[in-house]
């Protein structure tokens, strides 16, 4: 594990929507080259935490630091410029468009007068296709529509797209949702390779097994607070599951304020 300044750091971050206090003083650091899993029950604040890092929500209180510098992200584009890419649960692809359009959606390569550099977009997509996504076996080309891909392949495209733009931190929101076992393995494999390249990954996944297989560190969230941080050697898969179950039960007993 690398040391030094964390890539992204949250210091005592609070987020409220009106009277609802979703994050209550979360502090967290994501180091370079590590895979951090955010786990917790529905409403624990995982998604809100992610959205603070990707520039969709601004902390009501507290600080966000990127490479040691305090920043205020105003938009997703702001976060991207700082090397933070998000792969959304919905994957953010357009089904009827060719891969070469999807990969560059929203940040097209241009020639003159706003025309796209189609040749370069196709070439770069081809490179991603062959080197990142490993789509060598099937008849998928850069001109294929996204609708012709399987769920796992779509996820592969979404992740490869994030990687293409030199992201240093990739945030994966439920990347294995709805995927077959084989496809899930592929995605998890992907995560390992990304980390091996020295990039960081933050992953949210309901499936503790998937998360435990790839993460170096687990941040357990409970009702807007960090309930515990564990390095992988410290905690076994079963302990993690047991902890989740007990949090779930106390959350239930805690009553109305536990859910959001």
């Amino acid at each position, binding site marked *: 594990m690398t040391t030094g300044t964390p890539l992204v750091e949250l210091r005592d971050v609070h987020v409220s929507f009106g009277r609802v206090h979703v994050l209550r003083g979360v502090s967290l650091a994501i180091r370079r080259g590590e895979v951090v899993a955010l786990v917790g029950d529905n409403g624990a604040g995982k998604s809100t935490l992610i959205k603070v890092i990707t520039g969709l929500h601004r902390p009501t209180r507290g600080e966000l630091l990127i490479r040691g510098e305090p920043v205020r992200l105003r938009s997703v584009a702001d976060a991207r410029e700082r090397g933070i890419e998000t792969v959304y649960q919905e994957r953010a692809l357009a089904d009827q468009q060719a891969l070469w359009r999807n990969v560059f959606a929203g*940040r097209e390569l241009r020639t003159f007068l706003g025309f796209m550099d189609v040749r370069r977009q196709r070439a770069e997509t081809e490179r991603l296709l062959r080197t990142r996504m490993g789509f060598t076996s099937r008849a998928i080309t850069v001109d294929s529509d996204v609708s012709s891909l399987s769920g796992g392949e779509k996820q592969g495209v979404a992740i490869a797209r994030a990687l293409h733009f030199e992201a240093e931190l990739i945030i994966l929101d439920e990347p294995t949702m709805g995927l077959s076992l084989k496809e899930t393995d592929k995605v998890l494999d992907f995560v390992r390779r990304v980390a091996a390249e020295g990039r960081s990954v933050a992953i949210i996944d309901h499936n503790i097994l998937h998360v435990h297989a790839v993460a170096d560190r687990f941040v357990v969230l409970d009702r807007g607070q960090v309930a515990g941080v564990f390095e992988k050697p410290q905690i076994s898969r079963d302990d993690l599951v047991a902890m989740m179950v007990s949090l779930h039960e106390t959350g239930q007993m805690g009553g109305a304020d536990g859910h959001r």
Partner: protein
Amino acid sequence: MATADITAPPREPGLGALLRRNRIDAAITAILLALYAIFIGVRPDVYTSFDIYRAFMTTLPYIGLLALAATFIVTLGEIDLSFPSVMGLSAWVYGTVFLASGSLGLGLLAALLAGAACGLVNGLIVTKIGVPSIVATIGTMFLWRGIVNVLAEGQGIPLVALRDSPLHPWVVGRLPGGIPMQFAWFLVAAAVLALIYRRHVFGSHVLFVGDNAASARMMGIPVDRVKIACFMLMGGAAALAGVVLVSEVTYFWATTGDGFLLPALAAVFIGGTSVFGGRGSIYGTFVGVLIIGSLEAGIVAMGIAGFWTQVIYGLMITVSVCIYALIMRRAG
């Protein structure tokens, strides 16, 4: 695997592959050719002479300009029903500013601004207030037409003086061979808009937004701005169509633009642009305009009574959209 030497993979070469990639464009071309084969077969005297094509070239551009812009709107998964009224309003602005200033150029500019402004209002209602475009533009369809009627007091405006303007030949003059200038403008507009649709960042954004607006937003595409721009393009195109029409006939009617809604949209749908958004073709619309624009004259020339026109229109549109639906279903 080395990464540096991977270059753009060539598309599959050959005519067969080209047709397979553009099945719907190929289908519409076949329909046009079949239609003309029938016309020429039945009336070779009419259809081998250039006169009828000159007549088409005079009247096609009005529907043509409207249909080209409407292709962008339909690709968004939206619709604009107000463009005939925008055409009327812009035509009134054109005639009135021309008469007041004596300048055709100023009239044209004012008409374009009026058309774009109407489009801006449509776009804002759809994106910022959130009214579905079919509802919003029913409202503005009545609104713009109502404003025309109030402003013109229901009266026409004779504009014969337009012919004396040095710019008039540039708008609707005749090129060598008697080819009307407006047809040349229509070709230029089709070529430019086809390039924008397929190769410009804006066209790509329109396709992406029409395909999946939520994804487009997540990828940082300014969804609202893209939609507003398309409605403004539609407004501008309606203004141009109004200017060209009024310049050709040198008269403004308060009803200018009426009757263009369905033919223009029919051309878009015959051309294979999907009403669900995300997929379409400017080439398809272009051929659709050629079909819609020559159908009525063709039917009459064949000696079929004029009131059959709508039956054949209806058949053409229904059959072609059914063919596309089947093609798309097979493509999966």
